[in-house]
């Protein structure tokens, strides 16, 4: 941002497009600051690995858990480490259908991450737009949007999600919709708070003086400067969304049985738990836990690096 930090890009100023210049230098500083924390680095590595596993699940999973032809009901509820009829070892055991738990978890991770990241992304778009609008328009628009935010935030997420699913019924789309409705308010509040501070700065006044169109002022000038807190909230909300989706699926209100997320896998193992067959619930739970903790570690540190103001 400042002229003094320009040489760090290592390129002559003229060769770099204007936008890249603005983003590049703080970004590098941010990257180096981020990796100063060991826990956050570990968190990021774990999270990236999980995403890779989820993406590559069809290629690396020992079995396609949805392909009934590959399942052998005779292999049902086998203990971790047993060699099944198909000739490979069930490292994490099998569930009641004879499904390999390791494969189930890999595919479950796909669903959990898709729903979590997808809903967080949509909620971010909706929330950030409304928050920007509230901050920029002010007056009645602002107070109406913020009333809605307050109402939304005063309700526990689970209750709001239950309400929406009760009205709309189950299904992956409805779960995403419910998560978006539960989460948008966090983004809106964050963005509005930052935007209210930023819009009083000179560069916004300058942009307005140039008579740029309002949408350009908002999205090209105001929004980029509201990004740091938004990224922090976004990271944390992904973890929350994944946890909430798992909870809803566990309650039987989430994803359908044909597309089991981690939460549904845990739910499936519930009845076998009492008879001591712990692995059906235990390992998906560990996968869920590792996912959430890794995201939280990254988010926690991001907050410190990106926005000292948010630090308590």
């Amino acid at each position, binding site marked *: 941002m400042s002229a003094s930090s320009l040489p760090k890009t290592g390129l002559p100023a003229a060769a770099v497009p204007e936008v890249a210049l603005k983003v590049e230098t703080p970004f590098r500083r941010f990257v180096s600051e981020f990796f100063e924390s060991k826990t956050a680095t570990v968190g990021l590595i774990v999270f990236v690995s999980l995403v890779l596993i989820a993406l590559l699940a069809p290629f690396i999973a020992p079995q396609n858990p949805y392909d009934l032809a590959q399942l052998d009901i005779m292999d049902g509820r086998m203990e971790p480490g047993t060699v099944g009829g198909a000739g490979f070892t069930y490292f994490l055991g099998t569930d009641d259908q004879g499904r390999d738990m390791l494969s189930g978890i890999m595919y479950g991770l796909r669903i959990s991450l898709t729903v979590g990241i997808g809903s967080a992304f949509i909620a971010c778009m909706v929330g950030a737009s409304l928050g920007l609008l509230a901050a920029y328009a002010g007056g009645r628009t602002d107070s109406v949007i913020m009333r809605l935010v307050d109402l939304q935030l005063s309700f526990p997420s689970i209750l709001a999600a239950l*309400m929406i699913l009760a009205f709309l019924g189950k299904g992956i789309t409805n779960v995403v919709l419910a998560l978006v409705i539960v989460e948008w308010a966090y983004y809106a509040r964050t963005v509005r708070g930052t935007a209210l501070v930023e819009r009083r700065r000179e560069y916004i006044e300058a942009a307005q003086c140039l008579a740029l169109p309002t949408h350009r002022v908002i999205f090209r000038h105001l929004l980029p400067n509201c990004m740091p807190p938004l990224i922090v909230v976004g990271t944390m909300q992904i973890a929350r969304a994944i946890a909430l989706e798992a909870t809803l699926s566990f309650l039987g209100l989430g994803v359908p049985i044909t597309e089991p997320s981690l939460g549904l896998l845990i739910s499936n193992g519930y009845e076998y738990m009492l008879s001591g067959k*712990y692995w059906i619930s235990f390992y998906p739970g560990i996968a869920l836990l590792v996912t959430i903790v890794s995201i939280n570690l990254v988010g926690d540190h991001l907050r410190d690096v990106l926005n000292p103001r948010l630090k308590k």
Partner: protein
Amino acid sequence: MSLYLLRRLLQAALVMLAMSVIVFVGVYAIGDPVEILISPDADQMERERAIKALGLDLPLWMQYLSFLGNALRGDLGRSFVFNEPALQLILQRMPATLELAFGATIMALIIGIPLGLYAGLKPKSFGAKCIMTGSILGFSLPTFWVGLMLIMVFAVQLGWLPSTGRGETVDVMGMRWSFLTWDGLRHLAMPALNLALFKISLVIRLTRAGVRETMLMDFVKFARAKGLTNRRVISVHVFKNIMIPVVTVVGLELGSTIAFSVVTESVFAWPGMGKLIIDSINVLDRPVIVAYLMIIVLMFITINLLVDLSYSALDPRVRLENK
């Protein structure tokens, strides 16, 4: 003070009204009201008669008014499944949920405050670091999974505690309570701990932050300069100051504790409101869903009001402003 109370009551009534609109729109406009309110077994003739009788041929705003009128008289419809008034059904199960939520809140305070105090007073000690790491886990762990693990360890492996149900109950004032019997307490322990887990982390963090902030205040140093013992400085001067945010947050969280008991009740088959709502959603017993939502909103508003009042009782500065 009474003017303040009046204003707060009016606000509460407005929120209640807004929520009734949302619930009404949710149930009567988005879903198919015929399907929701009339038993699916009814034939065509019965359906049409019911539609007329229920006023479903009227415009939406008139339907809303009659819904509101019925709700004010305490009539929130009848359950399809139990064929009982929905309100009554929920009220019957409320003691179990309240017992669980209060148990969890008390547990959160009893466990959270001492740990938070310790972590705040000795921030650099190994114990404090363990406590803080534990609190991050408490925030990250999905409640339902922890519940399963508790069952696995304490009920299945060790066999110390029963895994499901409320155990023996005692009737007091027409309501059944578990916490009055030993067997009931044994049944309550695990679900309450499970539900408390998140709150414990929250209380630890709040207490720790409060302690660290308060210890730096001049009045703490002054209290020490007066020759008070460390014990008195911490247990009176520091403690009373940190109790304000802790009580406020824990009080406000009581509502969300009640809401989140949905999860814990499902894990431990605890026969409360939360279990009822999940079952009702699964069988589309929508009058019960509506009644549950309206009641829980009412509870929320009441709790917020009570917290505000107790807040002013704790903080003399607020008390003055309201006079």
